[in-house]
């Protein structure tokens, strides 16, 4: 058994806004083992990026972690001060931000921007060593060494995204978070990048947290996965199990709303309505207003919420387990 690298327990995070606190991360717990790939899936606005940002404590200024624990290799990150955190970022946990390929500084060569990141963490390394490192990273992600001397606008979207992945790997992190790394790219380029990420992950034995709203990509990329709805994890377990025996009504709907090029052509189900506001406290099942087949029991507001194990390693929200 490989060991747990990252362990998140009962994490709560909210954004303070004029109209009230937006509870974007509610009582979230999960762990990631060495070399494992963990997927986080859910519709837009459910809190995926908020979870990622909390892990690195890189959230917006109005964000507050109110409780919970985040341990990296047994070291608690919640409560660390900024300089301690800076050490953890990049070489402990690094992140490929959502939309990051558009965040390159346009007037600095790509190689120079990566070199800067390495320099901050390993000031003792020589320029030649760093160049060698960058060349090997570029090779890993399928980029020509010549790209080091290119400006961002001289690269295609796919090339920029590969360079971002090289940047995320530049300080030898244990855990890499990839937040929708291919959403802006077309399917052919997406496929190449996914293969690149898989290859690098295996080669370096990295732990990967892969965030996407696309359940097909999660199926391809991950060993374990969690389904998020309205700030909470409603189902979590081995990816194969979640797909073969989905328990929560929301998970089932997600699976039944995804078109596929293989298998019988099925009528797909749509998910109507809006996700609930994250400002008001939600009593009972947060999915019930949009649930296609609620049972009479779902209305029961005093039901205990929380994850229960339905088969080894596979958990779903208690509320839905009862009525499903």
């Amino acid at each position: 058994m490989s060991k747990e690298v990252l362990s998140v327990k009962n994490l709560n995070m909210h954004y303070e806004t004029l109209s009230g606190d937006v509870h974007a991360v509610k009582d979230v717990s999960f762990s990631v083992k060495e070399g494992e790939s963990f997927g986080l899936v859910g519709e837009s606005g459910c809190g995926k990026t908020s979870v990622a940002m909390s892990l690195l404590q890189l959230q917006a200024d109005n964000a507050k972690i109110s409780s919970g624990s985040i341990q990296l290799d047994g070291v608690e990150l919640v409560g660390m001060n900024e300089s301690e955190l800076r050490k953890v970022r990049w070489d402990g946990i690094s992140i490929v931000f959502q939309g990051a390929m558009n965040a390159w500084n346009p007037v600095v060569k790509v190689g120079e921007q990566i070199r800067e990141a390495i320099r901050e963490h390993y000031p003792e390394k020589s320029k030649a060593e760093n160049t060698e490192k960058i060349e090997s990273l570029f090779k890993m992600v399928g980029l020509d060494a010549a790209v080091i001397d290119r400006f961002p606008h001289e690269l295609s979207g796919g090339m920029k995204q590969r360079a971002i992945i090289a940047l995320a790997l530049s300080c030898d992190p244990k855990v890499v978070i990839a937040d929708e790394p291919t959403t802006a790219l077309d399917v052919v380029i997406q496929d190449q990048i996914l293969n690149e990420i898989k290859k690098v992950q295996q080669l370096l034995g990295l732990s990967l947290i892969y965030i996407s709203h696309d359940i097909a990509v999660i199926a391809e990329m991950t060993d374990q996965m969690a389904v998020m709805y309205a700030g909470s994890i409603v189902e979590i377990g081995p990816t194969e199990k979640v797909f073969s025996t989905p328990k929560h009504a929301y998970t089932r709907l997600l699976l039944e709303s995804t078109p596929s090029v293989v298998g019988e052509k099925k009528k797909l189900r749509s998910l109507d309505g809006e996700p609930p506001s994250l400002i008001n406290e939600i009593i009972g099942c947060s999915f019930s207003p949009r649930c296609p087949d609620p049972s009479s029991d779902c209305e029961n507001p005093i039901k205990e919420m929380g994850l229960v194990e339905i088969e080894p390693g596979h958990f779903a929200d208690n509320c839905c387990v009862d009525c499903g």
Partner: protein
Amino acid sequence: MKKNVIEVKNLEKYYEVSGGFFSRNKDIVKAVDDISFEIPFGESLGLVGQSGCGKTTTARALCLLDPKTGGDVKFYNNETENMQNIDNLEDEELKKFRRNIQMIFQDPYESLNPRWTIKDIILEPLNIHNIGDLQDREEAVVEILKTVGLTPASNYLPRYPHELSGGQRQRVSIARTLIMKPKFVVCDEPTSMLDVSIRISIMDLMLNLAKDLEVSYLYITHDLAVARYMCNRIAVMFNGKIVEIAETEELLNNPIHPYTKRLISSIPVPDPSYDRKVYDVNYDELDAIIAKHGTDNPMVDIGNEHYISTHDVKGLI
């Protein structure tokens, strides 16, 4: 015989761009290079292919948003019951054409005027084409909002685009298109950031309209899985050309062109226990077809109305 709503023959759109830094010559970009297809009433054709292959350029040329540089486009005229060339349309006929062919830009963020209310946005095409009196128009707006699932309408009419979610904005742009009761709709879907579930309800809505009102679609996407759900036939575009066109299931089960194989192999499958079929992208089957049929015809039918381009693509894919 099926009646076609649109017939496209040898369509070309070339752009002149400046050559290198020191060159005074102009280079020609063949964004759309000799493509042909037709779409029967009530059917939809998927146009799929990699970024930059010419999909949007095709769409814009069909809708007369940009002038084509070659080829013919014919559109069904329901008065003469004949196909009518869209070149040289004038006044009333041009206006009628514009009413019957509509384009949905699937990026709802850019296509809705941020300073207009939803009501004004949807009313605009009726005002432009001077359809009905004000009361008719307002009733039509309420009706169409119901059709796209934005109810009660009174909730949405006074809002501005930024006060809606992405999926709702997309419905508004569809409502604005459909209020004209077009016969043919071109949907250009860029890599959609939208959740699938929202996409499905919009796709279902469009499929119902195809069934009930015989609306036809040209549906542009990168995603073959989406095209499969929406389309009767699929045309695969590569480098400005259609390289393969066939009935949807035939194309997915029996891809011949190396680029189609490449594309199908790139689509992730929403099933972790499924080992995705990765085609060997070689030219053997294409070579055999070229050897048999020659290259005089740009597209040859290999049976089942499955067409393959005989154009030389060696080394490009």
